[in-house]
């Protein structure tokens, strides 16, 4: 019974014009015009100049292709990304295997310039192209009982030399609480710089959750499962003392092995200065309310 009704409405039809315009302003802010004033002062604004194509595509963590930063750029071409389908299952009305091209034909792709903060204390600014995860979930119809969303990366050992050694328990897994998944900032990226996602950046589609450490933004997704239990996540399974389920960017909660108070923007050369890390990676105004009443030191 899927696709019996095609959505031809726009945001104009469902959202009051003022709210819609306000949202547009937020988008413009993301694009580097007003975000400094919105979230974190001049520092944040200065840093919203996107990194270069080279920065974004040659300095990657994608352990399925090797643990060195250059390994993914070198090896990820081995991965077949077409055809590609995403299994959406669990607590949804329309479970099934969704072909990537079919998904793309339903979604409206927009540009989002986000700060990206790695748990290793480096950062970039990336111009993503993609659609909101909420729109994809709506396609499958989330049931009321669902509380969490679990994601899984492709695991294909013959195309992924890094999986020969078990650095992590493959396949790579991540998860979000449903309200985090439905948040308008949460993006399913399908491109960068207006081009298709390069394989090393998680082609053909990946998650981007800009207020969380980069490893939450799972790449090359093949499965999305709606569930009512907190799903197991790869880094948390590997070392729960160091990597929590939430993993929100937080300068006050340090990683057991290094401080998270500062970060280094990639691309500044040999003499790049560190800069302070901001709460929720500068998206505090947008997402802090999701965690009202939670002890962020405990739920790190």
């Amino acid at each position, binding site marked *: 019974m899927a696709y019996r009704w095609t959505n031809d409405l726009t945001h104009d039809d469902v959202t009051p014009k003022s709210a819609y315009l306000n949202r547009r302003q937020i988008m413009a802010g993301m694009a580097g015009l007003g975000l400094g004033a919105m979230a974190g002062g001049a520092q944040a604004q200065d840093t919203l100049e996107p990194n*270069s194509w*080279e*920065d974004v595509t*040659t*300095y990657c963590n994608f*352990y399925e292709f090797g*643990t060195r*930063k*250059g390994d993914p750029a070198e090896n990820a071409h081995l991965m077949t990304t077409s055809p590609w389908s995403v299994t959406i299952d669990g607590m949804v009305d329309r479970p099934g295997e969704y072909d990537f091209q079919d998904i793309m034909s339903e979604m409206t792709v927009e540009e989002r310039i986000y700060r990206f903060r790695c748990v*290793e204390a*480096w950062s970039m600014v990336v111009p993503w192209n993609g659609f909101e995860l909420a729109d994809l979930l709506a396609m499958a119809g989330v049931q009321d009982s669902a509380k969490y969303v679990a994601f899984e990366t492709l695991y294909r050992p013959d195309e992924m030399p890094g999986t020969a*050694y*078990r*650095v*992590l328990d493959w396949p790579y897994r991540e998860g979000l609480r449903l309200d985090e998944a439905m948040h308008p900032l949460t993006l399913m990226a399908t491109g960068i710089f207006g081009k298709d996602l390069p394989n090393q950046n998680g082609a053909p589609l990946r998650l981007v959750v800009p207020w969380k450490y980069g490893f939450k933004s799972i790449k090359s997704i093949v499965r999305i499962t709606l569930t009512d239990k907190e799903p197991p996540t790869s*880094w948390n399974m*590997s*070392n729960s003392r160091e990597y929590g389920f939430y993993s929100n960017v937080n300068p006050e909660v340090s990683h*057991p*092995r*290094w*401080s998270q*108070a*500062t970060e*280094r923007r*990639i*691309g500044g*050369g*040999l*003499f*790049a*200065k*560190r800069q302070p890390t901001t709460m929720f990676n500068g998206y505090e105004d947008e997402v802090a309310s999701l965690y009202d009443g939670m002890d962020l030191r405990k739920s790190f």
Partner: protein
Amino acid sequence: MRDRLNQTLRRVPTWVIYMLGMLPAPWFFYQGLTGALGVEPIKALEHKYGELALQLLVVSLAITPMRTHLGINLLKFRRAVGLLCFFYVSCHLLVWLVLDVQLLDQIVADIIKRPYITIGMAGFVLMLPLALTSNNWSIRRLGPMWRKLHKATYVIGLLGAVHFVMLVKGVQLEPLIYLAVIIGLLALRLPGRRSSTTTPVRRQRA
């Protein structure tokens, strides 16, 4: 064959080792400046120096077993290898202090609070007296104490390898290989192993 190799090695002056050994330091720095180390040259340079130091540590620990088990004599170069190792550990530390962490209070906090940095620093501090006594005058002056003091290299080797194992994310293969090699080289020095395997070599020579 082995005798010919040893004779050739004897003719290589140690200053050649010092010269060749120093070259990578400015070369890596130049690569970092010009982008050849990638888009994050600070970490890359730090890792290059650290990795080379660890490799030199392995070489210095291999010299004695190579002589006792294989009959290849590199003893003449051991001081040069040890001092070069100390030189690259110093470069590694300097990059970490000046280019990487930059902030003094964070440096102090890291040394105290982060076990892998504490271990790395302990290794560096232990190397200081060894580097300072790596000269003929100290050997004469210290007598049998010198040999005892320089056995600290065994501890330094382990500290260096453990530092590497602990700093990577997850359980990665490369640092574990270094740790295994260093433990192996130390195991070759255990009294039982040494006497049993060195006998045939000595007999061959005689």
